[in-house]
């Protein structure tokens, strides 16, 4: 009969989701990560915090840089309103003048940091930043949920950089963590300006048209193929997870109304009033358990899947940049292919480009392996946690109904006994 009725949510329908859902940001509730007083996130406070931290092959005890992002504050000026976050750093590293820093940063500053890191390490995988704003969503730009979600993502972003063997020693990163607001502003103004950065982008786009595909090592073609499929799948998973959350929410809403009807009914009954009230309380408890299950999704699965959606874009970008670097070498080599005489003239230049390509390839390869390992870990722990949450949900509901059933059948036995007596 089920097959005949068919699934309302056949594959095609699930994937054809509303526009809204594509940009829907994640709602999240406050979790242990926001424990302001606990400034050393290295020691896992709870299983949840362990899962939410970006775990690395380095053991937590070997860490020497601890960062927290908290305390969002809004600032209103004549021109604009914006939010700053407090960034607290504790370190034992020699290259830091002090062992503790506290600064305030706004989203723009994080964007700056990311672009500096991309500039300095074009073929390293820079962690994702939360998106700038929601296109058309149900979340207000500065709602508490939006700010909290962003705060968590920013916290993760900085910690991932701190855990990265190369990025952690980046100079701009250090400045980001330690400089006072005015110092940061003046530092930002140095270095290649906006125009030159734009120029870089134009060059990059131009060279990508030709870029390094024909001489691409097999390994990177494999990576490309992998990322194309991975990107597809992770996007679908993201949509599925959001859909599940939505369905669970609608279920929760109906359940809220379901229990009280039984209580209402019990008011006009005598004999069965207790049974009705019992059912009402079971339904209410299951309702609360559903809420917990939903929270698990929104705190854990949804953010992680979203991050990996962003990661898949980042990785496609990294692969493209590697191709561009290779492309620079290839086009130079092509240009002097027929001019034996100029080969010598340009041999130094070509040598430099060859080095550049080799560095880029090695950096990417190492970071790729690292990324894959972490992805595996994240997926394993996230989905395991989802399964756990579902298990706990069903276990709680089971206990509730079993205890109701026990109370009812105990009554029945009592009634039967009393009927037997003369």
């Amino acid at each position, binding site marked *: *009969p*089920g097959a005949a*009725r068919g*699934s*309302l*949510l056949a*594959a095609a329908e*699930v994937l054809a989701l509303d526009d809204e859902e594509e940009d829907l940001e994640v709602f999240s509730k406050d979790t242990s990560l926001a424990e302001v007083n606990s400034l050393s996130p290295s020691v896992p406070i709870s299983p949840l915090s362990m899962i939410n931290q970006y775990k690395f092959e380095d053991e937590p005890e070997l860490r020497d840089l601890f960062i927290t992002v908290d305390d969002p504050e809004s600032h209103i000026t004549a021109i604009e309103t914006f939010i700053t976050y407090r960034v607290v750093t504790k370190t034992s590293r020699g290259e830091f003048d002090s062992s503790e820093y506290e600064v305030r940063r706004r989203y723009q500053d994080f964007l700056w940091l990311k672009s500096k890191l991309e500039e300095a390490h074009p073929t390293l995988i820079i962690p994702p930043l939360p998106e700038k704003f929601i296109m058309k969503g149900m979340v207000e730009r500065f709602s508490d949920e939006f700010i909290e979600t962003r705060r968590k993502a920013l916290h993760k972003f900085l910690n991932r950089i701190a855990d990265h063997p190369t990025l952690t020693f980046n100079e701009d990163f250090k400045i980001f963590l330690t400089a006072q607001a005015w110092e940061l502003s003046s530092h930002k103004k140095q270095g290649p300006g906006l125009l030159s950065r734009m120029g870089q982008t134009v060059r990059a786009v131009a060279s990508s048209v030709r870029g390094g595909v024909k001489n691409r090592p097999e390994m990177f073609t494999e990576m490309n*193929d*992998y990322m194309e*499929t*991975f990107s597809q*799948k992770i996007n*679908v*998973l993201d949509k*599925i997870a959001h*859909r*599940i959350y939505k*369905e*669970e929410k*609608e*279920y929760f809403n*109906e*359940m809220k*109304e*379901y229990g009280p*009807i*039984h209580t*209402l*009914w019990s008011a*006009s009954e005598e*004999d*069965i009033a207790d*049974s*009705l009230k019992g*059912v009402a309380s*079971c339904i209410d408890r*299951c309702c609360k358990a559903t809420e917990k299950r939903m929270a698990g999704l929104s705190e854990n699965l949804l953010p992680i899947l979203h991050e990996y959606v962003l990661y898949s874009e980042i990785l496609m970008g990294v692969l493209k940049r590697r191709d561009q670097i290779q492309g620079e070498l290839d086009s130079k080599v092509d240009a002097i292919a027929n001019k034996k005489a100029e080969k010598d003239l340009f041999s130094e230049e070509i040598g430099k480009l060859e080095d550049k390509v080799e560095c880029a390839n090695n950096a990417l390869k190492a970071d790729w392996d690292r990324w894959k390992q972490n992805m*595996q870990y994240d*997926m*394993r722990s996230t*989905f*395991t946690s*989802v*399964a*756990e949450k*579902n*298990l706990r*949900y*069903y*276990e709680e*509901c*089971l206990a509730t*109904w*079993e205890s*109701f*059933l026990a109370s*009812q*059948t105990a009554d*029945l036995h009592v009634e039967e006994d009393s009927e037997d007596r003369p």
Partner: protein
Amino acid sequence: MEDCLAKKMEITVSEAEKRTGRNAVNMQETYTAYLIETRAVESQSEGQCAPVDSLWRRYSEFELLRNYLAVTYPHIVVPPLPEKRADFVWHKLSADNMDPDFVERRRIGLENFLLRVASHPVLCQDKIFYSFLTQEGGWKEMVNETGFQLKADSRLKALNATFRVKNPDKRFTELKHYSDELQSVISHLLRVRARVADRLYGVYKVHGNYGRVFSEWSAIEKEMGDGLQSAGHHMDVYAASIDDILEEEEHYADQLKEYLFYAEALRAVCRKHELMQYDLEMAAQDLTSKKQQCEELATGTVRTFSLKGMTSKLFGQETPEQREAKIKVLEEQIQEGEEQLKTKNLEGRDFVKSAWADIERFKEQKNHDLKEALISYAVMQISMCKKGIQVWTNAKECFSKM
């Protein structure tokens, strides 16, 4: 309940069949016919099975039977029929009367109806009911010959009585309120239950999408592949499990629906009481006024305003002979009226007594049945939770191996 038919005879509605035929205006129609099988219950020691008798009936014949019983036994809370059209559907269920699941649930409902009637101490003895079960041809004519339709009270009359009756038995008034409340709360419950079922279906089915994506993803993963693939399989199992779960819940909904319709039967008994009481009150009022008229004519005094009084004042009094004749007629009417009133009073008291006995029987049955239904609901929830635990335990293991 030694006389109860249910103990002497096994009754089942075992099959349902689609038929086409011609209706009263010679138009072609499709309908479902139900096979009623009966078999006398032999004592165990004989070890022989009596032969099975069977005949086919359609829903409209069941309706005719019930109408007959309701009119003939107005003091009895007559068991209700399963719904004519699918109501309180959650969208996965077809609202079509020809839908096989609907037909199946109706078959069960009709069997339940027959068993209820057969185990009722009064109704089971009815000859028409017995013939319904055993006599294929000519049953409809037999029912119509009883002339029961003439005994039926008009709806309008009943409605009138509801508003005008002055001294109904308080217990019936309370019972009527109860039946209204019962009807309202059960409909509300069934509506929300249907919505909850709909949402639950959604939650389970979306998880089914994991299966395919995990499978496709596993193709590009070396180490995670196996875990993903097998987890996906469990998600498929999870998604598929909801169909059976909700099918079972439909039976629970049907049990509640029966009592939703029973509320109407309860109200019918209350209405009958109101009608009889109203009748009684009208008859008493009529008698009083006739007595008064008589007195006035006899004594010549006009105590109350009446048209007769006015016209006689205007057009002159009647002759003594005319007055005598009138008094005589009235005295006859008064005597008739007093006898009628006595009968009505007796009938009324009998009705209240026997109705109340059946209502007590019904209350016990209702409490027992509803309590069992709630217990069966709990059992269903427990089974659903256990299935969920199993699936997610398996899924968790697969995920942890990723």
